[in-house]
């Protein structure tokens, strides 16, 4: 396998323009002859399907939910970045680019990130035109707020439901194309394999989640928009059905998986309340605009928070990072929370949380202003915890939230399999080792609205496509493998349900491959995951039948893939002998406990190639070269 990033030449500001000119075009009349299979209908998938449909391609969209509007992008709260510089506070495309590269701890591909910053403004325009009700000021113009890792206000938002409104915008644009006859919807379908013919991705195998039928679909290209793998950790802020199965099956068909160890632990989540817990709930990072994070100065201070006077509180983010304060990037804030809890200064029953306090903001701005900004988040917190954040500080703790790693893609968003494109969180591209807040929505929509629609044309126009139908041997053989695996899970008469296995795997991942990692722990994790995987295939119990609606069968397949992916995440964390962004190796830190990169040895994207069951995957390196920014120790002090 050879990794070719296909980054165009020329100065960074001109690369995308030049590339757009150099790419081949598909004649308008010919577009409808190309059938594109879009898998997943979150921000990336829906925006891609809408745009490709608008261009005239024959688009087929597959998704696991009953409606495309339910994809997990819907849950994003805080906002979306762009370099509009409407607040006149010094923003620019260059600054958005620079902040994103730095925020990712210099582990992203420069040219991709610059392009992302370039198209971000178009996204805001597009969404406003669709009727996305972004927050506005009294003059009728758009409002912005601040997010972590930036000193300008560049985040557009729609109350605490920005992801919902952006997704409904993309969904409605896609539905308009359904009405126009250019997009066909396939609800409740789960992609279970990729079909390759003559070295090209030519189709997918999916399970009809209502009838249980295993279906084959052929096309000219596949766009995978299936999100990240945060649910590998069992407890995360991801939705129950978010999963890595489609991406993982593509990996096993030859798509390289890049930087799997780059996982994001979000600092502001509602802490775990008990064993029954099925997921964790995020409290938007935007709360850190007005909330102050603190713990008691003394570990033995067990007074209720409102009785702890100012001099006995440690606002540790403001103390350690005076220039960014409570708005340091997520990885920094999460590690700092872990550090104070490790010192025994954590609060709450188990000592595994810190305070996020709005007392000062309420005194300064009034309760109503705070309610206007964050009311829905405060309500959500109250309902889950039974504590009122207007009166007592919130308690928060880090939780798995996002995965920067994903399938490796080149500048055109194509994986190492020709014709297989990967968009949004499912790819590894733009966030390096740490994603900044409000950048996921930006990337998903950039990929779908403004990048894939150009790059896929170049591939379609420049390739030859031998006939491919679902009657081909390649389709039949791949479908048979899917049938066999389904059969294997159902016939296994073990004693343990998928959820129990998931919980056990998640515990290993969180303990050894979580916020802080070390070589010994990672080796231990690999041993434990292998043992659990072996047990999984012997002792799995799946209820019900394969030929009907059966959520536990869907679930079992996803856990089976996590049992393999978990090992790869640990292996990747083990080989990366440095700390960067969300990947923190205890052996590599500065005297002040900050992440210590090793640019000489690790300024590369790690792309893993599958080599067969129980074989060690092969590591390929894409060297990251930085022509436009200088590699620096990241500092938010």
């Amino acid at each position: 396998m050879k990794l070719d990033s296909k980054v165009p030449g020329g100065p960074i500001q001109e690369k995308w323009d030049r590339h757009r000119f150099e790419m081949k075009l598909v004649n308008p009349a010919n577009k409808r002859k190309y059938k594109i299979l879009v898998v997943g209908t979150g921000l990336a998938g829906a925006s891609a399907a809408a745009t490709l449909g608008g261009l005239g391609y024959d688009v087929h969209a597959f998704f696991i939910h009953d409606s495309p509007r339910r994809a997990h992008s819907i849950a994003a709260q805080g906002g979306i970045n762009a370099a509009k510089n409407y607040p006149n506070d010094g923003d620019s495309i260059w600054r958005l680019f620079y902040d994103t590269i730095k925020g990712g701890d210099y582990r992203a591909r420069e040219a991709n990130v610059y392009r992302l910053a370039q198209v971000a403004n178009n996204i805001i325009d597009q969404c406003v035109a669709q009727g996305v009700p972004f927050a506005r000021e009294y003059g009728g113009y758009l409002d912005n707020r601040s997010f972590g890792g930036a000193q300008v206000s560049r985040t557009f938002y729609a109350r605490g439901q920005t992801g919902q409104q952006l997704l409904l915008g993309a969904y409605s644009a896609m539905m308009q194309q359904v009405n126009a006859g250019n997009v066909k919807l396939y609800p409740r379908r789960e992609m279970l394999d990729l079909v390759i013919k003559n070295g090209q991705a030519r189709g997918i195998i999916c399970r009809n989640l209502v009838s249980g039928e295993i279906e084959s679909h052929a096309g000219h290209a596949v766009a995978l928009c299936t999100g990240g793998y945060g649910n590998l950790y069992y407890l995360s802020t991801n939705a129950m059905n978010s999963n890595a199965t489609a991406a993982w099956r593509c990996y096993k068909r030859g798509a390289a998986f890049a930087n799997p160890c780059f996982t994001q632990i979000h600092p502001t989540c509602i802490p775990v309340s008990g064993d029954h817990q099925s997921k964790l709930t995020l409290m938007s990072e935007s709360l850190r605009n007005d909330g102050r994070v603190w713990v008691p100065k003394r570990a033995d201070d067990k007074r209720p928070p409102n009785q702890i006077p100012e001099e006995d509180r440690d606002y540790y983010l403001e103390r350690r990072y005076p220039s960014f304060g409570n708005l340091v990037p997520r990885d920094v804030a999460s590690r700092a929370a872990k550090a104070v809890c490790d010192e025994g200064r954590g609060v709450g029953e188990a000592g595994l949380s810190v305070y996020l306090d709005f007392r000062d903001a309420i005194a300064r701005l009034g309760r109503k202003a705070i309610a206007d900004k964050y009311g829905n988040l405060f309500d959500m917190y109250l309902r889950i915890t039974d504590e009122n954040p207007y009166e007592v500080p919130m308690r928060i703790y880090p939780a798995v939230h996002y995965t920067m790693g994903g399938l490796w893609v080149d500048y055109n968003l194509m994986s190492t399999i020709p014709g297989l494109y990967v968009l949004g969180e499912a790819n590894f591209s733009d966030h390096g080792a740490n994603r900044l807040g409000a950048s996921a929505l930006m990337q998903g929509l950039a990929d779908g609205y403004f990048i894939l629609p150009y790059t896929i044309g170049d591939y379609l126009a420049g390739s030859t496509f031998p006939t491919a139908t679902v009657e081909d041997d390649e389709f039949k053989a791949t479908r048979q493998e899917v049938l066999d695996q389904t059969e294997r899970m159902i016939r296994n008469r073990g004693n343990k349900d998928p959820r129990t296995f998931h919980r056990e795997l998640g515990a290993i991942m969180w303990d050894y491959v979580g916020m802080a990692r070390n070589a010994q722990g990672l080796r231990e994790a690999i041993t434990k995951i292998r043992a659990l995987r072996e047990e999984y295939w012997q002792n799995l119990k799946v209820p019900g039948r394969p030929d009907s609606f059966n959520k536990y069968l869907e679930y079992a397949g996803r856990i089976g893939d996590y049992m393999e992916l978990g090992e790869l995440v640990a292996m990747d964390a083990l080989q990366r002998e440095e700390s960067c962004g969300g990947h923190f190796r205890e052996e590599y830190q500065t005297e002040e406990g900050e992440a210590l990169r090793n640019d000489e040895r690790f300024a590369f994207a790690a792309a893993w190639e599958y080599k067969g069951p129980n074989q060690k995957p092969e590591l390929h390196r894409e060297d990251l070269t930085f022509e436009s920014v200088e590699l620096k120790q990241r500092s938010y002090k």
Partner: protein
Amino acid sequence: MAKNMTVYLKIWRQPGPDQPGRMVDYTLQDVSPDMSFLEMLDVLNTQLIARGDEPVEFDSDCREGICGSCGMVINGIAHGPLKGVATCQLHMRSFDDGATIVIEPWRARSFPVIKDLVVDRSAFDRIIISGGYVTVKTGQAPDAHAIPVPRPDQEKAMDAAACIGCGACVAACPNASAALFTAAKISHLAYLPQGRVEARERALAMVRQMDAEGFGNCSNHGECEAVCPKEISISTIAKMRREYLKAVVLNPE
């Protein structure tokens, strides 16, 4: 910490769309009041699987009240006893120790049962397909500041746009009307200048599709507003009627 509780569940079980369903009784012990309602059903399912029974099927995804996947009629109320939340945001502390809890799917002709508590809500998508959008292709948009929107209009649009498409409004309505769902989308776009261009076609097409899907008429019971997890106001239905009337009377085809 509150002590754990025992609940007596009566759950609608139906193997498939064309098979008859029935209520089945289950007793669940040691339920923490801090559990969410759906986590309680997860625990029930783990026990059912352990003893070789089929688990209760239900849709659920984000579990924070925004995706609109979940929805059950709990003791006769869509999404249960707590106002302004989806089923996933309900916690067991809303119930008493020893309570009997009756759990049923959304019941409406236009939402056929797929299995147990899972229903087919694709009719909602078809209503959106008929016109629930602004027709704007990628790349056509002017600068975002080209069209200022008065803040009160933007707030009203946002209030309506908060709809999560869960279907509780239909389940709660004695006529199984989809008026609140349809009105929320029509209102969201009608309040914004971007949406005015196609307001007429949109109102006509969406109302026509809503009727074609077999949803009942709205007769102002207000049950929809009462159960809506996003507290979408019934005034959006009045707005829809105005938009529809304007389309038919003032601007006939």
